[in-house]
């Protein structure tokens, strides 16, 4: 039998339907691959018993003719999603060995559609980071390695991007057929770009946030990682739902995203924003972007240069809004109701000691920035101003869409994957700059997808980002498929 982990979701779905193999055999193939790939540190908790039980139940359902859209498909779950009876930590010491007594809405949807859980995936602590280096379980290693000038493989471990670094690495390394992620400033799209995988952050409100550990509630959105555009479309259909438990979940029917994959983009207007040409951007990224433009033009799209004048202000505004919301959301970790407790002399002492011991340095930094910008006397100067800037950023996109633009094409990241430890030193702002192309999308609440576009001279994947109109994810799948067909798919050479 061929390696079952080589199949895409669409291929596995069809092969399972033809009874070429069982869900249990597919899950076992993944559990075996996971065991051999522990050097990647992608999983923080493997759940083989649960996976095998879920796979056996899936086979039983299929025997009775009950087949869900994800029947028997083994997935990894970012450790930010609460999973009933399965430890959930957000990769923070402060949650200790928290075992949720409930299941997040998104994962509930996946299991209801027949999917199988392989385990919980590593991420930056509370999703705060762009390299997966802030996790209390240690960094994830990117399955991709650099090529040296002489063509030999450089064994320096590289980051898989962040915050959903376990998800991106697991999908790229074929130790999950797909994975869940969350994206607050680029946490799905930047790791997808760094690992040659497909990642989509849907429109704010498309997927329920209920049961997902909150970082910045007005920016957080759940979305899938997959190896192909079609697979991402299949997954998003199950992710998305209207949920009365999330007041920001939008009452719109969920379309059949897969039906959009492979349809013509003739006449679609693709906007190319001039503000995304930034100083110091490697020539290879510029070249890839031009290549992407040529591919879409060749497929019949109309290419139009556009201006999004407030782009450069998105990242600074984000570093006010996101920490402000985080400082409020993370106030709940007080050592009283769940998680870690360090007992002090009195209640305040207990709070302060618990939070000092439980939060890592990046999380502590962001809580303090958030506390400062919301404090008396600074609220208007920082927070209100940042929210006004957010209006301007959203207006830039609104104007482009009103003028007829269907989707915007940009580079996904300002560089390919970097080495572990290379950017985590001195200045925190250096790491923040990773999200320069992705963060505008969260600030405006728009859908954004990253599709692999090619490899750089070091042999590392680079991604292209597509930004769409609110709730028009179908356009992204349509255009993304054209890029995938032209660029091909990228798989890392196995060294683990």
């Amino acid at each position: 039998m061929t390696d079952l982990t080589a199949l895409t979701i669409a291929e596995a779905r069809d092969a399972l339907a033809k009874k070429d193999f069982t869900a249990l055999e597919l899950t076992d193939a993944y559990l075996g691959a996971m065991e051999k790939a522990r050097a990647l540190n992608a999983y923080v908790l493997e759940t083989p018993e649960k996976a095998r039980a879920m796979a056996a139940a899936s086979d039983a359902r299929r025997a009775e003719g009950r087949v869900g859209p994800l029947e028997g498909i083994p997935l990894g779950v970012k450790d930010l999603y609460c999973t009933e009876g399965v430890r959930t930590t957000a990769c923070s010491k402060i949650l200790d060995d928290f075992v949720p007594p409930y299941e997040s809405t998104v994962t509930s949807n996946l299991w209801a559609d027949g999917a199988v859980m392989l385990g919980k995936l590593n991420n930056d602590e509370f999703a705060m980071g762009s390299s997966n280096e802030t996790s209390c379980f240690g960094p994830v290693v990117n399955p991709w390695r650099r090529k040296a000038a002489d063509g030999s493989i450089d064994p320096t471990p590289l980051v898989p991007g962040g915050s959903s670094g376990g998800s991106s690495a697991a999908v790229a390394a074929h130790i999950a057929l797909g994975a869940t992620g969350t994206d607050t400033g680029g946490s799905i799209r930047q790791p997808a770009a760094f690992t040659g995988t497909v990642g989509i952050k849907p429109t704010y409100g498309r997927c329920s946030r209920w049961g997902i550990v909150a970082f910045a509630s007005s920016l957080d959105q759940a979305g899938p990682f997959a190896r192909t555009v079609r697979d991402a479309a299949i997954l998003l259909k199950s992710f998305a739902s209207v949920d009365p438990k999330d007041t920001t979940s939008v009452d719109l029917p969920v379309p059949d995203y897969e039906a959009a994959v492979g349809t013509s983009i003739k006449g679609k207007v693709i906007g190319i924003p001039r503000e995304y040409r930034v100083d110091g951007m490697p020539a290879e990224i510029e070249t890839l972007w031009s290549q992407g433009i040529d591919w879409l033009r060749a497929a019949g799209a109309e290419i139009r240069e556009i201006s999004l004048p407030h782009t450069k202000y998105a990242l600074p505004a984000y570093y006010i809004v996101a920490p402000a919301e985080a400082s409020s959301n993370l106030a709940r970790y007080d050592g009283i109701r769940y998680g870690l407790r360090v007992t002090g002399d009195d209640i305040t002492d207990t709070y302060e000691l618990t939070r000092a011991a439980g939060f890592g340095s990046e999380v502590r930094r962001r809580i303090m920035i958030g506390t400062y910008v919301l404090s008396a006397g600074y609220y208007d100067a920082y927070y209100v101003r940042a929210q006004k800037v957010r209006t301007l950023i959203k207006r830039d996109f609104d104007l482009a869409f009103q003028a007829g633009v269907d989707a915007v094409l940009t580079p996904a990241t300002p560089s390919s994957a970097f080495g572990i430890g290379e950017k985590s030193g001195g200045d925190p702002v250096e790491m923040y700059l990773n999200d320069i192309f992705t963060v505008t999308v969260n600030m405006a609440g728009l859908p954004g997808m990253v599709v692999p576009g090619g490899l750089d001279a070091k042999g590392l994947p680079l991604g292209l980002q597509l930004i769409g109109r609110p709730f028009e994810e179908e356009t992204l799948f349509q255009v993304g498929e054209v890029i995938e067909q032209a660029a091909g798919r990228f798989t890392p050479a196995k060294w683990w």
Partner: protein
Amino acid sequence: MSVDRSTVVRVAHLARIRVAEEEVDKLQGELNSILGFVEQLAELDVTDVEPLTSVVPISMKKRADVVNDGGIPKKVTANAPLSEDDFFVVPKVVE
């Protein structure tokens, strides 16, 4: 704007995070680096711009005011570091 040492200590207390004396300088540098970075927002004229409160034009959904959950104290306290008879046990708050 930049923060001085005493502001770092005050903010840490507001955030209920204990900061050791020897960590204050490093934190001050990091916070000032971030505040320096966000300073560029001051270049923009935001007069007459409304702050964004919701990215999608929807009104807040309200659920019916009925009991739809509850009666699960064991589940609620299951993850508590310290609990007794379905209550959270905390350090003494009132003298």
